[in-house]
Every structure is written in structure tokens, then in C-alpha cells.
């Protein structure tokens, strides 16, 4: 029977071409949607890499004018001590503007031998790890001794480690940010931080320790607070900062809120794509339903004949559903050929597994869609009385 159906479909290839094209286009759009969803989900289920709860970001600009670096360092160290002495504060850390979940970025290469990997560069102090609750996977975090190190120490994320060294050891290796100049020693590896929200991957990152002149341009302070830190305390913190840093524009943000807004911003393209895909799927479903319905009306004579020569209502229904499924299979074979090019050609730099899962989900989705759309017309065909169908021809 399958061979018979293939023959029937092949001989009606012109009539089936449009229906197959519709299924093919639907598959490709659904594949794009599922790729996005699988990518987002894969990122979402991974840990953030830092603790955003009870973490505040203080934005400021340095208004302390002095030529003495020591004096500048003392100014900010005193500020740190003042804030840390507050009972609701657990940790204070100064860092560069590109804190996680902000719009600021500082990107550059990280090089090892002939490998160059574009990475986020963060300048942080010794307390940054505690403030952020970063997970140290190998080696150590920065300490005061690093200030006098002959070779500048850096800490890298596990993604950067994997990209630069594969399965090899990272600790103690010399890397660089310029071509063929490897003057930085890897002293630690931390778990990657999803700096652009839950739905984005943890990017390759390299952490630099602040040096004596960094306070002139640093503009962010991470303040880890206790869970009971409330609006009243926030007001008190603001006043303390404003009094200490005269003429500075101070703003306090909560990491929890920044995470929410960043996630929402990241979800917008997916929501738009989902809405477009939803309407497309409705269109395709109605189209398929209409075409199959039309086919049944057009093929009433054939249905009547098949019933007369020995087909039961059930087998007529099965035949029509099977025909639709075969058409779907042919469309999916063509669609899969195009879809498989994405992992093969490494388009958009996504892992092959994401495309494969999206492909499987899209295939299941299209089969379900075609099945649902052909079941009712198939049932209607089964209900046609043979004498009536033969008479209508």
C-alpha cells in the first residue's frame, strides 16, 4: 500500500508541490523558532555564575582631584572601610563599568600561541570575588601580593580556558592581549558569568586586578548587603556616599532588578519570533486543513470507488492521513537538508547539539501539525457513503 501511495503522490506531483512547499517553509520557520528556544533554554538552565541576590551596584564618577595616586587610593580605601563598617554591608568591591547585566562592554582578544579569542575584560579588586560570590574552579583569586608581581596575574573564565587550552592545564600559562606578546600569567579559573542575563551564554572573560592608578577611571562599586537591607538603609548608604564623594553623580541599582530588565530585553526577539511563528503555524494549519478538505471533496469519486472495491471507512481515512504524512516526510527530507547546513557550516557559532535538538523538535511538530490537520478530513472521508460518493462523480 505504501508503494501505491508513493506512486499516487508522485503522479500528482504538480498538485502536491504547493502543499509540500508550504510544509517546507513551515518547517524552516519552526526550525528557526526552536533553535532560538533551545538556545535560550540551554543558557537559562545554566547557573548565572554569580549571586545577584542582595547585590547592589553603585554608579559614581571620580570627582576626587589629586595628582597623588597614594592619596587617591587612600581616599577610596577609606570609603570602602566606611561602607563596610555598616551592619547591613557584607562586602564592598570596586570594579570597571562593565559589570554584569549592564549595557557597558569592554572587549578585546585573549591570545595563546596562535589562538585568539574575543573576550570580555573586567578590571576588579581583591574583594570582587566575595562580593559577587564567584565560583573559583582552579588556582586562586587576586591578593595584595599580586601588586608587586613581576608578571601580571590574570584570572580567566572556564569558557576562555576551554577555548585557549582545550583539555590542557591553564594555571601558570602565559597569555597575552596583543599578537605574539604573552606577558600575563593565568593564576586562576572561575566559572563563567552570564553577564548578559539568564538567556545569554557565559562569555569568555579575563579578569585584571586593579592597579594603583585604576581608581581614576573606575566607576562602579559592588555592595553585597544582608537580606534585611531595606529602602531606609539604601537612603542612608546614598547619603553616606554623597557626603563622601562631593559633586559625584551617585546612583544605586539592585542587581535583581537589572537581571529582570535584561532578561525582558533579551526575550523581546524571541517573543516577536514566537508571535510571528504562531500566526504562521495557524495559517499553515488552516491551509493544510483547507487543502485536505478540498482534496476529499475533489476525490469523492475515488473514495467511493475504493469503498466499492474493498476499502473500509477506516482504511480510506488511514490512506488520506498516510498520504499527508508521506508529503510531510518528503518536505521534511528537503527541509532537513537545508537545516543540517547550519551545524555543518557553523552558522551563528552555535553548538551543533542546539541545531540537532531544534531539528528533531521541528520534525515532531510538523508531523503532529499534519496529523492533526488531516485527522478530521480523513474521518469525514471515512464517513462518506460509497453509493453517495460514486453518484456525485
Amino acid at each position, binding site marked *: *500500500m505504501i*508503494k*501505491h501511495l508513493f*506512486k*499516487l503522490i508522485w*503522479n*500528482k506531483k504538480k498538485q502536491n508541490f504547493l502543499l509540500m512547499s508550504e510544509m517546507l517553509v513551515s518547517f524552516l520557520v519552526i526550525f528557526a523558532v526552536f533553535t532560538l528556544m533551545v538556545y535560550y533554554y540551554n543558557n537559562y538552565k545554566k547557573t548565572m555564575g554569580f549571586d545577584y541576590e542582595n547585590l547592589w551596584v553603585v554608579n559614581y564618577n571620580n570627582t576626587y582631584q589629586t595628582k597623588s595616586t597614594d592619596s587617591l587610593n587612600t581616599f577610596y580605601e577609606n570609603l570602602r572601610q566606611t561602607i563596610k563598617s555598616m551592619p547591613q554591608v557584607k562586602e564592598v568591591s570596586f570594579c570597571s563599568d562593565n559589570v554584569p547585566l549592564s549595557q557597558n562592554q569592554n572587549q578585546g582578544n585573549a591570545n595563546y600561541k596562535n589562538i585568539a579569542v574575543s573576550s570580555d575584560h573586567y578590571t576588579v579588586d581583591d574583594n570582587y570575588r566575595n562580593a559577587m560570590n564567584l565560583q573559583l574552579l582552579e588556582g586562586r583569586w587576586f591578593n595584595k601580593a599580586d601588586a608587586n608581581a613581576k608578571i601580571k596575574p590574570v584570572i580567566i573564565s572556564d569558557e576562555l580556558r576551554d577555548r585557549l587550552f582545550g583539555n590542557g592545564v591553564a594555571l601558570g600559562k602565559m597569555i597575552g592581549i596583543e599578537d605574539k606578546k604573552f606577558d600575563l600569567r593565568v593564576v586562576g579559573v572561575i566559572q563563567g558569568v552570564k553577564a548578559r542575563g539568564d538567556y545569554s551564554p557565559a562569555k569568555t572573560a579575563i579578569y585584571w586586578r586593579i592597579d594603583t592608578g585604576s581608581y581614576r577611571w573606575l566607576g562602579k562599586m559592588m555592595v553585597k548587603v544582608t537580606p534585611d537591607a531595606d529602602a531606609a538603609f539604601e537612603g542612608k548608604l546614598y547619603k553616606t556616599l554623597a557626603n563622601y564623594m562631593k559633586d559625584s553623580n551617585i546612583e544605586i541599582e539592585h542587581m535583581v532588578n537589572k537581571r529582570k530588565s535584561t532578561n525582558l530585553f533579551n526575550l523581546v526577539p524571541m517573543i516577536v519570533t514566537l508571535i510571528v511563528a504562531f500566526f504562521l503555524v495557524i495559517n499553515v494549519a488552516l491551509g493544510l486543513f483547507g487543502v485536505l478538505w478540498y482534496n476529499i471533496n475533489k476525490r469523492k*469519486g*475515488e473514495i*467511493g*470507488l*475504493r*469503498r*466499492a*472495491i*474493498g*476499502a*473500509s*471507512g*477506516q*482504511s480510506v481515512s488511514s490512506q488520506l492521513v498516510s498520504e499527508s504524512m508521506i508529503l510531510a516526510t518528503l518536505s521534511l527530507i528537503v527541509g532537513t537538508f537545508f537545516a543540517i547546513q547550519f551545524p555543518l557550516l557553523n552558522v551563528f557559532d552555535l553548538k551543533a547539539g542546539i541545531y540537532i535538538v531544534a531539528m528533531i523538535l521541528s520534525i515532531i511538530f510538523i508531523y503532529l501539525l499534519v496529523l492533526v490537520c488531516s485527522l478530521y478530513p480523513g474521518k469525514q472521508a471515512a464517513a462518506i*457513503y*460509497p*453509493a453517495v460518493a*460514486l*453518484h456525485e*462523480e
Partner: protein
Amino acid sequence: MIRLQNIEKVYRTDTVETLALNKVSLEIAKGEFLSIMGPSGCGKSTLLNIMGLLDEPSKGDVKIDNQKTDNLSDKQLAQFRNKKIGFIFQSYHLINDLQVLDNVELPLLYRSTTAKERRQLATEALAKVGLSNRVKHFPSQLSGGQKQRVAIARAIVGQPEIILADEPTGNLDSAMGNEIMDILLQLNKNDGTTIVMVTHDENMAHKTHRLVRLFDGSQVQ
């Protein structure tokens, strides 16, 4: 072979009730060639459909080969039709997207036969109706007479005991009609197939063993 007892068929709509057959009783012996005549709308095709289990009577019994058919399920009816009955229609009812050989094979698809057996039986059936040289043609490439011969080949491919023909020569000129009639007569004579034929043509009807006339749903002869 076929026994109809007090067959009544009523078509009902919301407002109208039409009596298509009124207490028709008929017995057709094995190997008989019977023709049914009557004016348009007298119930000939309805009677043939009831005999062929394509339609069910409003009242009365249908027995084929001494088997009552009113308690058979849809699947059992389909199997019964497939094994016992071959149909020939005025408008041929060929599937235009299938070649002649595939059209003839169709009834065998609903039986447990191998592709090779199907091919062999279909080729033999086409040889019987003189169309061995048209197996790869599509119905649109055939004349009316050839199409009806394909339909006859399809009706006999499963070697049924009964053939029901609804105006098989109705769409053909007299020469073609005679050719088709000759094939049916040969099938009846050589294979002992029971044939019931609805026709408007007195000449064709008189070539059969027995003629039954209907008028306004009732048997008048």
C-alpha cells in the same frame, strides 16, 4: 446467489420523503445474466447499489451466497465486496493519476497478496479484455471503450462470483457498446460469473438471460 426480499428504500429530507424502491423481491441464480431496465429515476441504480452492499435498504433482507448481510460491520462489508463482487460503472471511475495496470490492481491492494501476484493477476485480467498493450497508459490516453474495458479488468481481477454493471455501455457508441457487451457475455459464459446489468438499451437487455423492469420503484416484470 443473490436474494432480495421485500426491499424498500426511502430517502428522507426534512420535508420530503421519497420512496425509491417499493417491496422489490428478486432472486438471481448463480451464473445468471440479468438485466434491469426502467425509466430514469425508477430505482435501478439504487437496487444495484443495495445488491452490491454499497447502500442499505430501509426495509427488507439482502442475502448473498446464502449469507445475510444486514448484520455485517463496515469492515466485513468491505471484505465481502472485495471478494465476492466486481463493479462496473457508466462513468468508469478510473483513477486518472494511476496507470492502467495500477488501476486494475486496486481491488487486490485490499487483500493480502504480494506485489508480484497483483501484477500477474492484473496483467491476465487486462489480457482478457484485450488491453495488454495499454498497461503503461494513463486513463486520459484511452478511448471511452478502452476505459470501460479497463474498468471490466478491474472488476474481474479479484475473480469475483458476481459482477454488477451500472449502464456499462451508456457512455459508448453502439460498436463500442457491443464490444463491451461481448466481453460481459464471454465472462458469464466461460467463467460462470453472475452478472446483473442496469441498462437503458433494449438490444443489450435482450442479450441477457432475464430482464427485470422497474417503474416508480416497483418491479413490473
